[in-house]
Each structure stands twice: as C-alpha cells, then as structure tokens.
C-alpha cells in the first residue's frame, strides 16, 4: 500500500482510503437504506439492524473504491474529480483495488452471516452492478449510462427492507423505482451545467452526445413517472394521508422545476439557473420524501 510521491515512496494516508469510499454518496445510501429498514413490517434486533446498515454503508464504500480504481484516468481529466487520491498521485491503483475488494467481501459475508442471505445477495449484486455493469461497461459506452447505472443506487432501501422481512414485496420495489427514476433528472441536470467537464473526459453523457435540448426533454419525461412512483405508495393505500400530501407537494415542486429546465433555452452554464435549482432540490427532495415515508410507515405500523 504505497505510492510514489515526487521521488520517494510514501504509504497512502488513511484519509485517502476514507475519500475512496465517497462519503457523501454513502450518506445518501445509508439514509435510504435506513428508511427502507424502518418502513418494513416486522422487527429486527437493534444490533442486527445496525449491522445491516453498516454492511450497506461498507458495501457502498466498496463500490466507490472500485469505481475510483477503474476511473482514475477519467477522474484526472475532470476538474470536479482531479483531486481524488488516485488521479492526484496520493495512492497507487493496487491499494485501491485491494481496499475495494476487501470491503465488498467483508460487507457481503457479514450481512449474510449476521442478518440474512437475501439481503447479502442483493448487496453483492448492487456492488457488482455499480462496479462492473455501470463503471466498467456502461459509463464509457452509452449516454444511457446513468439510467441503467442508477439501479445500483436504488438497491439500498430494498436491502434495508429485506434485512427485516427476508423478502421483497411491492413497496420496496416502489422505493427502488423512485430512486431509479429520480437518477436521470438528478444527474442530467448536473451534466447540463458540467457538460464541458464530461466532454473533456470523453464520458458520453447525454448532453455531450445528444445535445442540451434532448437532455432537457428527457429530464422532464423521467420526472413524470418518478412523480407517479413517489405518490403510488399513498394511492395504493400503503401510507397515510401525511405521506400522500407531502409527496404530492414535493412532486409538484419537482415537476415545476423540471418544467422550467425543459423551457430553458440556455447553452452556457452561467445561464443554467433552473438546472442548478433542480439539481439542488433533487437532493432535498429525496431526503424529505424518504424521511416522510419512513416516519409515516412507523406511525402506521
């Protein structure tokens, strides 16, 4: 676990291993997984519930490490990622690979032995999906990369649910659908005002390949089924009016912002205020929606 720094060989700093796990992404993963776990019917021992969330967090960290191991060349070309440990030369690639594989193995085996093997299986599949299907296969070859890759980020609430119940029913599938359909508007709004960065790195994001108009159409198009999926738990009688009302209001705001993105003709990043607003709100939207969902379900159960 060493790296060349100028002309001497330095062991990588522990903070760089921490950075490899993408802590900010991990926080959203932990949060949605916790919501899935809290919303599930039944009981889980608090220690095992904590272990399940820990394993999901470590699994997400493994995915982040393996992603950065493979993408070191792309990361070096983008301003947003150039200071990560690998492109900045603070760590060698083999250390990142060993770290990622080690975390993945630990999280899956611990989840299986402590909680149940269904949740461990879904966790293993989500790591594989993010590291191999998204990072290695899709990201460099198709502008639909984040649509299919978004599935990897949609698994945590399903894993949290499965940790409690040992099965997967309609409600966790709806939670999966919400995050899956939320991912394209979220990432494409970012890609619109970061287009130059992605183009420089040669990543075929939709604005780079198909243009801004097509991307804006797609953002609005994906927002509609996302709103439907978000309101569906209430419409199907699985939550109370509390979540239903909040979901309708949150989705109205989301759709209004997506509409203003759709109508925005700007080509320069400086004139893309609607896109920046949608990107910022989309994060708040997901946090609020899942928090309200979990709170509502806990009151119902």
């Amino acid at each position, binding site marked *: 676990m060493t790296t*060349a720094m100028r*002309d*001497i*060989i*330095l*062991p*990588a*700093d*522990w903070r760089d291993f921490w950075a490899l796990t993408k802590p900010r992404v991990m926080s959203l993963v932990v949060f949605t997984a916790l919501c899935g776990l809290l919303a599930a019917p039944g009981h889980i*021992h608090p*220690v*095992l519930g904590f*272990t399940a969330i*820990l394993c999901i967090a470590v699994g997400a960290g493994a995915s982040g490490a393996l992603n950065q191991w493979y993408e070191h060349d792309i990361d070096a070309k983008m301003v947003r990622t150039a200071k990560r440990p690998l492109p900045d030369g603070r760590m060698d690639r083999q250390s990142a690979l060993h770290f990622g594989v080690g975390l993945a193995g630990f999280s899956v085996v611990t989840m299986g032995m*402590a909680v149940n093997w269904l949740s461990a299986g879904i966790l293993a599949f989500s790591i594989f999906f993010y590291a191999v299907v998204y990072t290695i296969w899709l990201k460099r070859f198709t502008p639909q990369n984040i649509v299919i890759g978004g599935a990897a980020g949609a698994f945590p609430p399903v894993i949290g649910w499965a940790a409690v119940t040992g099965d997967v029913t309609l409600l966790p599938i709806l939670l999966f659908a919400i995050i899956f359909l939320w991912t394209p508007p979220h990432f494409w709004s970012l890609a619109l005002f970061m287009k130059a960065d992605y183009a420089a790195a040669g990543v075929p994001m939709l604005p780079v390949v198909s243009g801004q108009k097509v991307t804006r159409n797609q953002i609005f198009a994906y927002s509609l089924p996302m709103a439907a999926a978000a309101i569906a738990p209430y419409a199907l009688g699985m939550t109370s009016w509390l979540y239903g009302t909040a979901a309708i209001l949150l989705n109205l705001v989301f759709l209004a912002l997506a509409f203003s993105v759709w109508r925005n003709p700007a080509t320069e990043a400086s004139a893309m205020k609607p896109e920046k607003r949608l990107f910022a709100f989309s994060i708040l939207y997901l946090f609020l929606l899942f928090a309200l969902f979990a709170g509502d379900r806990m009151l119902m159960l």
Partner: protein
Amino acid sequence: MTSEERPYTPEETKLIRQRQAARSRIMAALLVAMCILFFAITVAKIGFW
C-alpha cells in the same frame, strides 16, 4: 527506497513513520470495533438480549 536507490532523508523517514503509525492506530481501532460488533451480533443471535 527512492527511485535512485538513495537512502531516505531523516524528514522522509519521519513522514513515513508518521503515516505508518496513523494507519496502525486506525487499523487497531477498526479491529477492536469489529470484535465488539461480532460479540454483539453473537449475543443478539443467541437471543440473550
């Protein structure tokens, strides 16, 4: 060793030792945390709590 096989300077050696010590402390803390976690999981699975 350096790329030219020259010995480390005292400053470089100090920096390497600091990094190694910091990583050892983190690793020790993680191992202790893992022991506690596995003990707690075992007790919870047995149904003692």
